[in-house]
């Protein structure tokens, strides 16, 4: 980093970082035991929330320059926000981190390939649902045409980092283009009408995890909801926000707000903890735009996770049954720490007959998936995953349940890495509940293997 660049970054920190929020941290250290990177690093203060806030403040105060070490420690934060619920002073660490990363990214000179990759992912792929569908369909072609087999046999896959290689193996069987495009804007309830809800379908969930979205709609119908699905909605922008592309995230947020604000719905339902949390934070994201701030708040207030609405509508009191199995739950960090939803998924799982629920030690600790963390910080991510898989095995569970696609893939990765795929599976809670409630075409007495 040149000294001119450092000066520019420092100036941007002084201009943009909320100094009151920095001062709110009174360094009591209550966050330390909750921070996965602090623990994983062998208790390094610079890898803790208290340390990272002190470093940001030191840059603003001019105590230090924003050097490479500084950037690294901010980048190595998982952004799991486990520090927030335990912070008695109520510091919004996630907001500070996002702003800091956005500044660093804006001043970063990416190499050409990285630039192209970032641009195609963030600007052209994720914000465009049609392209997401085509991309997913292409993946389907790769999986079905025999190309996958060829790639594996020729050893081409060995050129990729280990986590990516394994990831290639555990990606779900993708839906066809036709399935993905076959959507209806409205589904009426299958029982007595209790609520009208909007369904935020998401980008990945609506393509690669299309089946989970179908299951979500079905559960909502069963629980007594009319389900409205505005067609023009798009990616929530979480990936952008977390990767320092705030401006793009703002554009996506505005589109989503417009898509939902004219619908008369009680809640806007999500089935991905990470997306839900980002939508939940739209008020903060748009707080500086007078025309949008209030609309964003209104939108954010309606956000509810699928598990929360199901419990509210007494879904867990229905007749839910599965073959005998031990089940454990891995919290989605953002569902727990930002949306503060953690009792509901457990309540639902415990309500299923045949399920022995075993709480995992440190279930609330991040699995290391963390958006694209497991791709960009592969080695660190695998350390978090190793710890997680040890805890999973202590529970003797055969089914690991998650509430977010990133966590789901990471848990599948963990199972594959540990060679446990013969006796363990990872599922999204929605897919398990659909099995349990018994849906035509999904015989509930036949446990699915992934």
């Amino acid at each position, binding site marked *: 980093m040149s000294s001119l660049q450092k000066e520019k970054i420092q100036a941007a920190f002084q201009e943009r970082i909320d100094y009151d929020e920095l001062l709110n941290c009174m360094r009591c250290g209550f966050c330390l035991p909750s921070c996965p990177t602090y623990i994983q690093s062998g208790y390094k203060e610079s890898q803790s929330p208290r340390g990272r806030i002190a470093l940001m403040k030191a840059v603003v105060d001019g105590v230090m320059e924003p050097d490479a070490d500084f950037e690294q420690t901010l980048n190595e934060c998982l952004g799991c926000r486990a520090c927030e619920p335990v912070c008695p*002073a109520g510091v919004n660490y996630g907001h500070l981190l996002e702003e800091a990363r956005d500044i660093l990214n804006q001043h970063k000179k990416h190499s050409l390939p990285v630039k192209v990759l970032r641009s195609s992912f963030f600007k052209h792929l994720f914000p465009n649902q049609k392209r997401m569908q085509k991309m997913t369909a292409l993946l389907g072609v790769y999986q079905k045409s025999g190309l996958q087999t060829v790639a594996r046999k020729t050893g081409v896959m060995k050129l990729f980092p280990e986590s990516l290689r394994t990831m290639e193996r555990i990606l779900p069987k993708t839906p066809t283009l036709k399935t993905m495009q076959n959507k209806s804007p409205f589904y009426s309830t299958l029982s007595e009408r209790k609520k009208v809800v909007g369904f935020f379908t998401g980008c990945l969930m609506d393509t690669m995890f299309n089946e989970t979205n179908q299951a979500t709609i079905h559960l909502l119908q069963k629980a007594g909801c009319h389900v409205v699905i505005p067609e023009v909605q798009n990616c929530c922008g979480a990936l952008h926000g977390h990767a320092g592309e705030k401006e793009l995230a703002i554009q996506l947020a505005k589109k989503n707000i417009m898509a939902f604000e004219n619908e008369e719905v009680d809640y806007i339902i999500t089935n991905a903890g990470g997306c839900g949390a980002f939508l939940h934070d739209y008020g903060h994201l748009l707080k500086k735009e007078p025309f949008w701030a209030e609309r964003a708040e209104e939108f954010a207030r309606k956000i509810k996770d699928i598990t929360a609405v199901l419990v509210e509508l007494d879904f867990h009191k229905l007749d839910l049954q599965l073959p005998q199995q031990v089940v454990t739950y891995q919290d989605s960090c953002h569902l727990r720490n930002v949306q503060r939803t953690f009792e509901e998924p457990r309540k639902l799982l415990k309500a299923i007959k045949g399920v022995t629920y075993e709480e995992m030690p440190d279930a609330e600790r991040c699995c290391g998936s963390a958006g694209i963390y497991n791709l960009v910080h592969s080695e660190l991510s695998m350390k978090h995953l190793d710890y997680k898989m040890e805890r999973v095995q202590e529970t003797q569970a055969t089914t690991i349940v998650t509430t977010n696609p990133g966590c789901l893939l990471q848990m599948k990765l963990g199972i594959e890495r540990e060679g446990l795929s013969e006796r363990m599976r990872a599922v999204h809670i929605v897919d398990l509940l659909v099995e349990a409630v018994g849906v035509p075409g999904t015989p509930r007495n036949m446990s699915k293997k992934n």
Partner: protein
Amino acid sequence: MLEQSVINKLIEIVGESNVETSTTERVSYSYDATPNFQALPDAILAPQSTEEIANIIKLCNEEKIPIVPRGSGTNLSAGTTPLAGGIVILFKHMNRILEIDEENLTATVQPGVITLDLCNAVEEKGLLYPPDPSSMKISTIGGNINENSGGLRGLKYGVTRDYVLGLEVVLPNGDIIRTGGKLAKDVAGYDLTRLLVGSEGTLGIITEAILKLVPLPETKKTMLATYQSMDDAAMTVSAIISQKMTPTTLEFMDQPTIEVIEAYAKIGLPTDAKAVLLIEQDGMVEVVDRDIKRITEICKAHHAVTVEVAKDEMEAEQLRSARRAALSTIARLKPTTILEDATVPRSQIAPMVKAINEIAEKYSLKICTFGHAGDGNLHPTVPTDARDREEMDRVEKAFEEIFQKAVELGGTITGEHGVGAMKAPYLEMKLGKEGIEAMRAIKQSLDPNNIMNPLKMFAKDTRKRVVL
């Protein structure tokens, strides 16, 4: 800055991966939980053994490099802020519980053990390590010993000092000594153990400790009494003690404190009450039941508006953890939070609380007061903003008056947080010139080069605050 040759020698002692000198790391160890104190160390070391520490000290003594031992940096007197630069020593590799001796009722631990981990480990064996500072989830035993930390159970069980039986210490000249032992009685020589407990890292580095344990009480009950006047609450405290009962915990919170805790924890605290007492008793079932019943009567006799006994452990834990979070919760009110721990004989609680309120009014400040009423240990806390120089000036004056009043009432300037850099200027108020000289004589004979945690405990000039 340290010369490269010195850094090389340090690397030789502890290994390259245990020496940090980058700006990022130096900034990360430039503070503790005390507002407005910050100074960068030159290097951070994480030794793995007593021998390594002895070698570090010898080198630093030769080179006259300051050393600050640091646990988790949760102290509130700037005791672990490296104000003179030098080396910060971490105990993250020395964090093992070496032994729990069920015959002698002792635990032998390394300094880096987290307080709560020790509490949990001994409770599994039906034993209790009583000192429970509010930061116990994070704080280390080494830090607790150096600061002589108190806690919520202090009234009945005492403070850290009462549970340290023996120490292994590296002195500033590099000598390794062992004091005390697994002994109920020991009068061999000066009581160096007691001298070192609470010495704030100014006399040497503690590398191992033998701690006293007690049998885990059979049961525990928690109750909450609310009052419409602060005086009534204070009178209740005096009445309980004078009726020959010693509750485990007798905590006090005033209205501003209750309001902020309720806003954070949402456990149904009555925000309209002027004062709340959190009372706990532990012991044998019959004794606890009897005491809780008698205490309830005393509360009512002193005009308590409500008296409630927690139904189960979950409810009780909610009340306790809400109290533990008091300080950081007050931090929500304003960007800067200044907390003191003036302490008076417990019979003087009511006059002290009254004085604090008058002082708050005189200087137009919001002061939240909570604390260990049974110990006479109050935490007047001011939510403020360090950027507001004019208000900070009033805060400083107010605290000076609070300290004066406490000493006048036969109390002290600090009950459990320590002197550090923050209260060094006021120490003479409590000890007098001669008292300070006696302390200085001890310091100079053990640490003639003043390498151990300099600028702490001994102020350059008295009364004036260092930074505020």
